[in-house]
Every structure is written in C-alpha cells, then in structure tokens.
C-alpha cells in the first residue's frame, strides 16, 4: 500500500469517529430540545446510528482487510470482527424498539390528539383521579377499558 493510500485510510478512520460523535450529538439535541414526539424518535434513531458507527470505528484498522477467511488462514491484518457482530445485534434490537415506539406513537396521537410531549407530560402530571375522568374523548375500545379501569380504581 502506498503512503498516500495509508494516509487516506487513516483519515477515513478519524472521520468515522467524528461522524459518529456528530450523529450522537445531533440525536441527543433532537431528543432533549424538540417537543414533537416524532422528531424525538428520529433523534433516537440518530443516536443509535451514531453509537453503532462508533462501535464499528473501534474495530477499524487503516491497513487491514475485511475479516473473511477464504481457503485457510491468511497472515494479512484484518479488522476486528467482534464489534461488527455486536452492531448487528444492536441494529436488530434498535429496529424492535423503534417498531414498539411507532405503535405507541400512533396510540398517543389517537388518544391525546397531539404529539407535543409537553402536552402529554401536562396531562400525566395532572391529578390522577381527574385524568381518569377526562379520557372520555379517547378512541372507543381504549375508552371502554379506561372506564372499567377508572371504575375499579374509585
């Protein structure tokens, strides 16, 4: 490998870390400073991608090959395959959590009529007995269960 190519690969390694940290920062900003729950979820996705990129970057080596052994053991340097295996798991978990979050997001929109997290927090912080009665406008099946719940609680 020529000196130029090594330098380029080295720069790429640093860019990976920079990109990962930037993604995490943007994501955390969205989660903390935005009030629309859809944007908050997108922020979570960004944080997750940033963290995954960070983990892949840890195993990266500028002058190494992909960790695939073809036809017996070779003596070339390879990038660390373990972080890649971890990221694979983390991505799958992330997809599952995101699916659950989307389902809850739809239910929140249906029952609250808004995705503003301040509005949701205001309702949740209100007196629980009063909150139980104010859910008459909820979607039909949820409302029925709600009434049953409120009935057993009083």
């Amino acid at each position, binding site marked *: 490998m020529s000196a130029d190519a090594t330098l380029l690969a080295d720069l790429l390694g640093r860019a990976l870390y920079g990109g990962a940290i930037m993604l995490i920062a943007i994501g955390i900003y969205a989660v903390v400073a935005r009030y629309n729950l859809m944007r908050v979820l997108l922020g979570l996705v960004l944080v997750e991608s940033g963290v995954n990129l960070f983990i892949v970057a840890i195993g990266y080596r500028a002058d190494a090959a992909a960790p695939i052994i073809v036809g017996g053991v070779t003596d070339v340097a390879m990038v660390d395959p*373990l*972080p890649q295996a971890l990221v694979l798991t983390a991505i799958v*978990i992330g997809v599952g959590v995101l699916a659950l979050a989307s389902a809850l997001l739809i239910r929140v929109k249906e029952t*609250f009529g808004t995705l503003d997290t301040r509005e949701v927090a205001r*309702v*949740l912080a209100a*007196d*629980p007995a009063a909150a139980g009665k104010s859910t008459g406008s909820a979607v039909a099946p949820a409302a029925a269960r*709600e009434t049953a719940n409120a009935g057993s609680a*009083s």
Partner: protein
Amino acid sequence: MTSGANTLVLPIVLPLLGAFLLPLVARFGDGLARALGIMLVVVNIGLGWLLWSGAGTEVAVTALGGFEAPLGIVLYGDRLAALFVMVLAVGALIFWPKAENGGVKAYTLTLLLVAGGSGLVLSGDLFNIFVFYEIVAVASYGLTASAGNKDGFGAALRYLVLGSLGSSLVLIGIALIYAAAGTLNLADIARLAEDKLTGTTGLAAFLFLVLGFGVKAELFPVNTWVPEVYAAAPMRVTAILAGVVSKLAMVVILRLLVLVFHDPASIQLLMAVALVTIVAGEFAAYRASDLNRTFAYSSIAQLGLVALALTIPGTAGILAAIGIALHHAVVKPAFFVIAEKWRGPIAGLAGGAKVAPAAAGVFVLLSLSIIGIPPLPGFWAKLVLIGGAIDAGGAYAFAAAVVLAATVVEAAYLFRVVAKIWQPAAGASPARFAFEDLSPAMLLGVILIAATLFMAPIGTALSGAAASAADAGSYVARVLPGRM
C-alpha cells in the same frame, strides 16, 4: 460444562420459551396460558433456590455452547444472582397481571421480564448484559401501556424515549471498555482494569454506564419517568417495576463496581449521584400531594440509598445494599397496593382507619419499617448502612448525616399520611378494601414480620452472599481458571 449448568441456563431459557409459546397456548384458552405462565414463574423460584443452595459450596459457572471464557459467553451464579432470580420470580408470582389488563399479552411480557431479569443478574458478559437489559426494558414499556388507556400510552412512550437513550449510553460505555480492554468478559475486564481502565477512558465509560443503567435504577438525573409511569401503569406492573426491576439494574452496577471500577474517582462519582438522588427523592416525596406519587419519589430515594451503600468499601457496603434492596422489594409493592385504592389527594384520606382498619394497620407497619424503627427489618438495613458509612469515615460520615436527615423527612411525610388516616372523615370517606384487593399487601406484611422474627439467620445468609459478591478475586478465578 459444570454440574450446575442447567440451573444457570434454565431460569433464562424456560420463561423465554414460555413467552413465545404463550400466545399459541392461549388459542386453547386464556386460563391455560395463565396457568402455564404462573407455573414457569414457580419453576424459576425453585431454580433460584437450587442455585442458592448450590452456591453455598460451589459457585456455578457455565460457558455457553462450550466456548470457554474469555472467548465464550459465561453465566455466573453466585448467591447474589440466585437471590435476585428468586426475588424476581416471587414478585412476578404475587403480582401476576390481572386478566383485564392486557390478558395473555401481559402474561407474555411478564415472562419476558422474568427471562431478561434473570439473564441480567446471571450474565458474566457485558454485551449480554446489554441484550438482557433491552429485553427487560421492552417488556416494561409494554407492561406500562398494558392498561390500554390514554395515560398508559403517554407514559410508556415518554419512558421508552428515556429508556432507549439510556440503552444507547450503556452501549457507548461498553464500546469504550472494549476499546480500552479489548474484551467483554467481566472477569477478563476485571483482570485488565488495573492497567487499562483507571484513566479518563475508564471514568467516562463508568459515567455512561451509570447514566444508562441509572434509568432503570431510578438514579438522578435519568429518573423523571418514575412518577409518571408508576401513576399510569396498572398497580401490579408498578409493584414489579418499583419493587424488583429497579434492583436488577443495581445488581449490574454492583458487579461493575466490585469487578472493574473500584478506583476513587468512580466511587466519588456514584456517591455524588446517590446523594443527590436521595435528597431529591425525599423532598419530592414530601411535596407530593397523592399517595402514588409519594411512594414513587420515596422509591427513588430508597434506590439512592442502595447506590450509596454500594460506594461503601468492603462487604459491609454490599450487605447494606442487599439489605435495603430486599427490604424495599417487600415494602414498596405493598405500599402501591394500598395507593391503588386510595387514589387522589392525601387530604381525602381522612377516616381511612375507620372504613379500612386492616389497610391502615398494614400502612403503619410498612411506614415504621421503611423509616427504620427497631426491631423491623428496615432498621437493620439502615443500621448496617450507617454503621458502614461511619466506619469508613471521611466523606462517608457526611453521607451518613444526609441519610439521617433524609430519614427525618421520610418520617415527616409518612406520619402526615398516618395522622390523616386516623382523623374523622370529612365528606366522602375513602375507598374500602375487598379482601382480594388487600391480600398482596397483607402477604408482604406477613413476610416482613416473619423476617423480623428470623432476622438472625437471614442476616447470616445475606452476609455470606455479600462476602462472596464482594470477592472480585474469586470471581475472576472461577470464570478464568489458570489465567490469574
């Protein structure tokens, strides 16, 4: 594979398998699914007991798939892990979800919670801990929403946002540790911690891990979900989350402290977090105007006490942490049972002792124990904590003073409620309790009294568990024989 292999793998695998079978079994009737779920939880109590009695002579270690540590994934079942496998299963048994709150879906999620929680305390591998932590997290989000009402959905989504941010922080912490030490096996990291993890990287990793696991462990500043979720979730879910699941995250923090992060900087960091958690929790509980929120904030303060106990060096600290955690696991769910019926402002509870004398009696018993009146178990737990803190001296003496001050605040808000209950009713009197409504609280009250009577043998058993959990050397030697 050692002989204890099955008792280590089964508490995770059986409930996990059950969780996937339950929706299929439910096709033949919900009652069958309920019976199968409860049976699996009972089996887990038995497995935890086998693990506990086996760990007295030989701690079980299993390398999954036959790959030896540090390359393979290990499970480590000492008495601490066995204890919490049992506590989790007992909690799930007493507070098995009611049919009207989600039905089979809630049973499935409870089994997932039991599987993930058992994995969390048994795992000897950082990345596996992350995976089990996520299983526990997803199950708790689902259970929070299982009442199927507006508050449940809102609280679950806000909980999920904070929870996944926490999981990402855990993952960053794990990545930093892997970058520095090149391994994910806890025993292997413990071996290398002295060289590789004492500097800034180690402290940063610990900060991320404490913030991440702190979401479930209700530590400041990532515990904002607690009052919302505990008020919105069905009572049985709240009881499990507050009573047991928060302690499982503490067990992970305990392992990290004992094995990896025992340098002064990490200890001071956790101590600061713990003290702020205690003070913020007790004062918020004092300001709360309804029972549910009072107990939610008081739960935060109690977990702050557990975290503080963990910072005290040696076996005394671990023993205090286990003691307070177990005591809280008995007392707080019972409190939430009472809070479910007595919703609304505390001012409306006047006359409670007249309409529901049994509930009022249990409330007083629980209050006395959590404040720490001898001879109830809460007294002994706090005594070990304060004794250990004073023995350690220095900043710990200050911490002991904070704990005593917090106890005064705790007594103030609990006795305020007790006084209110014994006042004559003004206007509508509070709700009565049907026997089945109060029975979980009464059962826990009986456990509390039994623990008072058998304090000596329980103390000895817990001291043994604490001593073995505090011994990092034997953990490494057992997981990595011949590598010391």
